[in-house]
């Protein structure tokens, strides 16, 4: 019996989710991890705090210059309320479905059923923050104020509120209580540029040719790792990988590692692709193809 390596995309704890569009194509969404989401939240709170301080000073200056205290207080009270409750709701109801913090970290809120993100859903997921964040905080505040007068009760209360706070860690879709109730989840939105065509880049020049034995060394997984190495262009990695391939294939060193790897990539890619066309998909180097 052979042990298969448990690689990222296929492991149980993966955050990739099947998401089939009405056109029948699986987009394979990737959920935002708990860490990223916590960071986005902290980022939002920092931005919120800074804008609150700025607004307070601005209103304060206006208040000093103009009518006086009353308008200032009203503006401040309403403004603080709107910021606290409206910040997340208004941003998430916009076209990007993300607050500034989420946008910076490449996250967005999405309806789990793939439909429109409705106002009701956005409001529900954000109203629930009251029990997720502010409930534990207020218990901590009470404890600090009363000097832990009733230790047992406080611990119990913290445990109870902790359930809501750490809810995302207890389910595999990383849903907050608010997400659960609103039918939403938070996904990664990367913006990738289309990289250059590594094979076409070598097409115009004279290429190295490789024997079948040299090309049989690797499968798709290794090919794509090699692609990463070439695209990242790190000198050290290129030297190491080139040396490894040469050693395994028994090829002499011709001095130009990058060109060697590019040619090897092109040749391997062409070979694996040809195999794939006739239904022989070689996932990685551990798969031995039956007949050549």
């Amino acid at each position, binding site marked *: 019996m052979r042990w298969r390596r448990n690689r990222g995309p296929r492991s149980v704890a993966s955050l990739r989710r099947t998401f089939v569009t009405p056109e029948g194509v699986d987009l394979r969404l990737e959920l935002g991890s708990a860490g990223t989401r916590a960071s986005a939240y902290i980022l939002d709170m920092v931005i919120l705090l800074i804008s609150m301080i700025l607004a307070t000073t601005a209103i304060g200056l206006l208040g000093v210059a103009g009518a006086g205290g009353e308008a200032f207080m009203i503006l401040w009270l309403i403004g603080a309320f709107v910021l606290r409750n409206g910040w997340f709701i208004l941003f998430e109801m916009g076209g990007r479905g993300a607050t500034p913090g989420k946008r910076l970290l490449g996250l967005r809120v999405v309806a789990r059923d793939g439909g429109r993100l409705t106002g009701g859903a956005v409001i529900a997921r954000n109203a629930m923050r009251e029990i997720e964040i502010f409930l534990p905080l207020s218990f901590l505040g009470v404890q600090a104020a009363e000097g832990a007068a009733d230790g047992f009760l406080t611990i119990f209360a913290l445990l109870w509120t902790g359930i809501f706070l750490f809810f995302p860690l207890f389910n595999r879709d990383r849903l907050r209580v608010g997400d659960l*109730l609103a039918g939403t989840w938070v996904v990664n939105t990367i913006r990738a540029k289309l990289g250059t065509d590594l094979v076409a880049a070598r097409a115009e020049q004279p290429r190295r040719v490789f024997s079948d034995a040299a090309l049989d060394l690797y499968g798709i997984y290794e090919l794509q790792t090699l692609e990463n190495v070439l695209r990242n262009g790190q000198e050290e990695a290129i030297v190491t990988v080139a040396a490894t391939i040469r050693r395994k294939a028994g090829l002499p060193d011709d001095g130009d590692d990058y060109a060697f790897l590019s040619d090897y990539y092109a040749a391997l890619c062409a070979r694996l692709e040809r195999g794939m066309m006739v239904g022989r998909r070689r996932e990685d180097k551990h798969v031995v193809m039956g007949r050549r």
Partner: protein
Amino acid sequence: MSAFVDTVAAPLVNASRFRAAHEAEWERLDQLVTRMEKRSVRALPDDDILALPLLYRSALSSLSVARETSLDRSLVIYLEQLCTRAYFQLYGVPDTALRQFGRFLARDWPMAVQALWRETLVSFLLTLAGVLAGWWLVSTDPSWYYSIIPDAMAGGRDPAASAETLRATIYGAENGDGGLATFAAYLFTHNSQVAIFAFALGFAFTVPTVLLLVYNGLSLGAMLCLFAKKGLGLNFLGWLTIHGSTEMFAIILAGAAGMKIGTAVAFPGRDERTEAAVRAGRSASVAMVGVVLMLMVAGLLEGIGRQTVQADAMRYGIGLAALAGWLAYYYLPRRREGDHALAA
């Protein structure tokens, strides 16, 4: 062994041909989607909008083809993110804020409140039970008053106070002439935050929400009893009614909304538990926006109207008219048509 070969023949792999054939389309879709993300779909000229669905579908089919035939990971990742972004721009974007707000006022708000009628009734009865209990407790033993109502909230209104002091709290302009609007703003924000909190607490199987409702009733009952003993019961009720009819209604609705999600989580019925929670959560949160708006009205009535309107009859008139208005807005039958855009 690595001899060189000089070939300037057709591209070596499929991916290159595939790219050459479709790259322009992908680029165009990318540009359109980026523009939509930055502003909105209205930023696009007509022919771009017409091209959008075609470009989107061809990108999707490119993705399927690339996954099956190409080993170029960067190509597949690029197409995946392009299709995902385009999908959410085409299917996932909510309406404009203005249109949503219009529909919210016309249909979604009253409909959401109407859907809560059973919970509203229960939370009204709970509040009523609280009022009766509070009244009964304080009338049998006035010392209960101190344990029900915290000192800060009582503000001198306790069993030891004389009838004149109590009368002054009802009819006096306590804040002088300034500060009324500030007081209104404070009341609105504070009450709304508490209401949102009560709603969110409903998730814990409604128990905390029920407690909050009963407690709210208790303090009302205790106060009522206190004033009634001094012969000021009707006057106090008038002072309370002017804003209280709106405010208490809003609090009862907030409790009902919390109850709705709590019961949906606890007793999902024939649905899957998460499904039931989602349905309840979305419609109840629409009602919650309504609650916040109601509290805004209540804050205005309380902060400004209560001190400037001093006649009992006017106070009752305004309060009851507001109540009748809310009831008519929510419960008068209306046509059911179309879909709930906000609560769907």
